């Protein structure tokens, strides 16, 4: 447990000291949301109706953008090699990386949603539901991302392969994520969508460290 927290703490410390990464992701997230009105026109009603989908796609794209960094630096400086001899198991290490990555890529986006809510003419209750659906759904995206990053870690230029691998896996999250926000689906449906998404998140967060560790063990230098 101590090693787990130390790893999460180290990743957070490194991210804040190197700086910029989390902010760039947030800027990207806001900008994707900001360019949509230019593409589909400034009609407030259309925008408000499309807002849940736009927010989810923006979040999805920005999280994919940061995926490659999950294990990359640890591979390049040799830390991963030593992780394989650590007293802490690779499964725990993958889980700690997952948690740190969620804190660094998903949480800042959720904090930045009010900006998108204003840009996309969302009302307050829709925004609340958006935050809730992102909170419940993004762990699944990070979990799939951890698997993708672990599988492609030995490819020197694997930056684009991981997103392509995990995109199909993430479709259910997107479907339930959007229907958990959308107002016209009715209260019962959105609650059910939220529960489904929670189930996907819980299962994927529980299983992905094992899959990622398996992939990391197969890495040969």
């Amino acid at each position, binding site marked *: 447990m101590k090693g787990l927290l130390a790893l999460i703490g180290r990743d957070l*410390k490194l991210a804040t000291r190197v700086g910029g990464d989390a902010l760039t992701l947030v800027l990207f997230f806001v900008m994707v949301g900001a360019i949509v009105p230019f593409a589909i026109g400034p009609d407030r009603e259309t925008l408000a109706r499309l807002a849940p989908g736009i927010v989810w796609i923006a979040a999805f794209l920005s999280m994919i953008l940061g995926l490659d960094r999950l294990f990359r630096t640890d591979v390049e400086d040799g830390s991963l090699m030593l992780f394989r001899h*650590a007293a802490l198991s690779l499964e725990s290490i993958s889980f700690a990386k997952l948690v740190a990555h969620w804190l660094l890529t998903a949480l800042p986006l959720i904090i930045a949603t009010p900006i998108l809510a204003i840009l996309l003419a969302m009302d307050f209750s829709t925004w609340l539901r958006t935050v809730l659906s992102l909170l419940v759904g993004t762990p699944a995206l990070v979990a799939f991302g951890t698997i993708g990053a672990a599988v492609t870690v030995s490819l020197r230029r694997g930056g684009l392969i991981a997103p392509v691998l995990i995109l199909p896996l993430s479709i259910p999250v997107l479907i339930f994520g959007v229907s958990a926000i959308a107002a016209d689906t009715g209260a019962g449906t959105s609650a059910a969508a939220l529960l489904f998404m929670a189930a996907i998140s819980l299962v994927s967060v529980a299983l992905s460290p094992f899959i990622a560790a398996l992939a990391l063990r197969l890495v040969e230098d």
Partner: protein
Amino acid sequence: MNFATILSPRSLKVSGLACRRGERVLFEGLDFEVAPAEITLLRGPNGAGKTTLLLCLAGLMRPTAGSINFSGRDPERRPDSDIGFLGHLSAIKTRLTLTENLRFWAAVNEVSPALIEPALEAVGLAPLAGLDAGHLSAGQTRRLALARLILSDRPIWLLDEPTAALDADGDLLVAGLIDSHLDRGGMAVAATHYDLALKNPARVKTLPIGRRP
């Protein structure tokens, strides 16, 4: 040093080991044994397969044939956590201070953080403990990696060019560290181009690696 305990004895038996990189066979039919409190030095020209052999021993690479057996392992623990590996890559985060780097590895390897200071002292980096590791020179980074090696307190040491980038003092330091490791009953395999000034030549074996092309 504060590491007073005797290490549990481990020995190594390698038989018929073969390894290839791509099409090229680096070595085959390699047999050797390393007893507790002994060190085996791997000798050979560049590209002979010394690093590859160490990676195989560390379980980071799969050999094409042959077997590697470490005996005396504790079945209750994960087998990998017996090994202290010192490779070409430093695994040091440049934006963390020396102490933060070591504290992280101490936590991951479940050793007491109280041992960090003695470890830094042993490699002569104690005055720089609060400095960002990015400001260290190549040799100092190597010393920090050595500090992590003694900190992780493993009975089996696999060292790849332990004296790389080190000054004359550093060479003596490495020899001293290996000597005290062997004194405590640990075993080691090291790839090196230089003669280490080890105090007891009876504990040192040399293994030539590689075949003529």
